[in-house]
């Protein structure tokens, strides 16, 4: 199953990754090889087999809805690559004209 350069670009856009032309070429070859290998799964008859999303035998347990100390604001904000007035600073998300 060949993954074309165009498909690589499409996936990279979905994954929010900028790739160099060399990376696009390499990933197109490597993803094709890996997916070829994975193709053997298609031959397995799974008509009556349910999927396994988790191995846990239980429902997620509920815990008491009680207040507890969390990480400090300073502790969190010390990692911000850019901040303003104690908030994370990001480029505009919406166009001012809209």
């Amino acid at each position, binding site marked *: 199953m060949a993954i074309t350069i165009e498909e690589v670009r499409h996936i990279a856009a979905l994954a929010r990754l*900028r790739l160099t032309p060399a990376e696009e070429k390499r990933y197109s070859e490597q993803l094709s090889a*890996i997916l070829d290998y994975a193709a053997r799964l298609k031959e397995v008859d799974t008509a009556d087999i349910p999927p396994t999303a988790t191995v846990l035998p*239980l429902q997620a347990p509920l815990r008491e809805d009680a207040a507890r100390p969390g990480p400090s604001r300073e502790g969190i904000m010390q990692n911000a690559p850019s901040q303003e007035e104690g908030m994370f600073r990001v480029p505009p998300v919406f166009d001012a004209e809209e």
Partner: protein
Amino acid sequence: MTTLIDLSLLEAVESLRGGDVSSVELTQACLERMEALEPKVCAFLEQTPELALQQARAADQKLTTWRKQGGDPPPIMLGIPIAVKDVLCMQDIPTTCGSKILEGFRPPYTATSVQRLLDDGVVVLGKTNTDEFAMGSSTENSAYGPTHNPWDLERVPGGSSGGSAAAVAARMCYAALGSDTGGSIRQPASFCGVTGLKTSYGRVSRYGLIAYGSSLDTVGGLARSAADFLPLFTAMAGYDPLDSTCMPVEVPEISLEDINLKGLRIGVPKEYFIEGIQPEVEEKVRAAVDLFKELGVTVREISLPHTDLALPVYYLIAPAEASANLARYDAVRFGPRLESDELLEQYLATRGAYFGSEVKRRIMLGTYALSAGYYDAYYGQAQKVRTLIKGDFEAAFESVDLIACPVAPTTAFRIGEHGDDPLSMYLEDVFTLPANLAGVPGLAFNVGFDSKGMPIGMQLKAPHLNEPSLFHAAHAYQQATSWHEEKPPL
């Protein structure tokens, strides 16, 4: 004369309690060992000597008070120096997961597994190297350079917990924490000749473990023997309300006294002795099985018929989960940022520049497997085949108590040997992935060496939540043999 670094963890505990040695002395011995060997081994990403000595002094105070006043014995891990894989958060200690995208990150909280050990008074020497986001089988994918195998510095220590395995093997610490998503504790334990436990999924809290594949990730670790790792397991295991996948079930108390393996049934799966396996690996693992027979174990051949499908299943499910988990690296809340006037451009540039090539490859693979038109054929089908693999174990454990097999098809390979061939590297994980897909625990330990002097590991797997039988069997083996006491020629 036995130097302090050559003490086993349990001997160090006895010496501390007896007042023959202080935690500060143990810690200094480890720090000196690190100073001497780190330039060659590169096991650590971050060393924390000041913190370690501060913790050691606090431990010594508690030990002195206890010796004077008596009372209940202190926690076993009090004052014992360990290392922590750099995928587990420790408040205010730089944590990178071996990635440039987390360079400079100081977590605002501590992982539950680490916190429970800190509460017991453990000493943390530093954070150990890992393949970026735990994605790899050699530690070569760390953005900060590879770790070297203490048995042969030209070879890899395995991965992704390669830094932890190398640090334990080189005797820079008495134990180290790791994580295992597809073999990341067991395979480096095997390559470095130490003992490594992958816990049952849900047994140890994942809170504060930086996520890779959430349905597969487990916290565990490594030490020189099963007996040495037991107190860490006991400290870490058990329900945590901060992780909804951590099971609210009691952790049985495990005693290693008067172990008798008579009546234990071990199954040897024929699918794990395949063409391409290094002959010495098969030979030593079969010899270890024979020794178990001498210890009174009943051994029989079993079949896990879907074993060969574990690799393609894992390499669809784990990347799919990773592609979702790693969406959080958006250069908004943490990590370096390539500034732009446009948010989308900022995402693309930052993620493209700071994720390494294996991480990008898995994000791409996972995004593809989850994308419209391919979801059912890849991710959905992989989840169904995962059910069959889990079923293999359930069927096998109806007639045996443990499964014994090799950890990896080969001993440690040379740094750079797999080049840029991801599929050949993935094949290294063929014997470890099934336990993660089934959620069962596995323990790896040294059962001999190949002709080049590289360690060979055996793996025992047990039913879900059955860690006690792993400890019992491995401890009995290690009492009858001395492979785990071998020391690399550094």
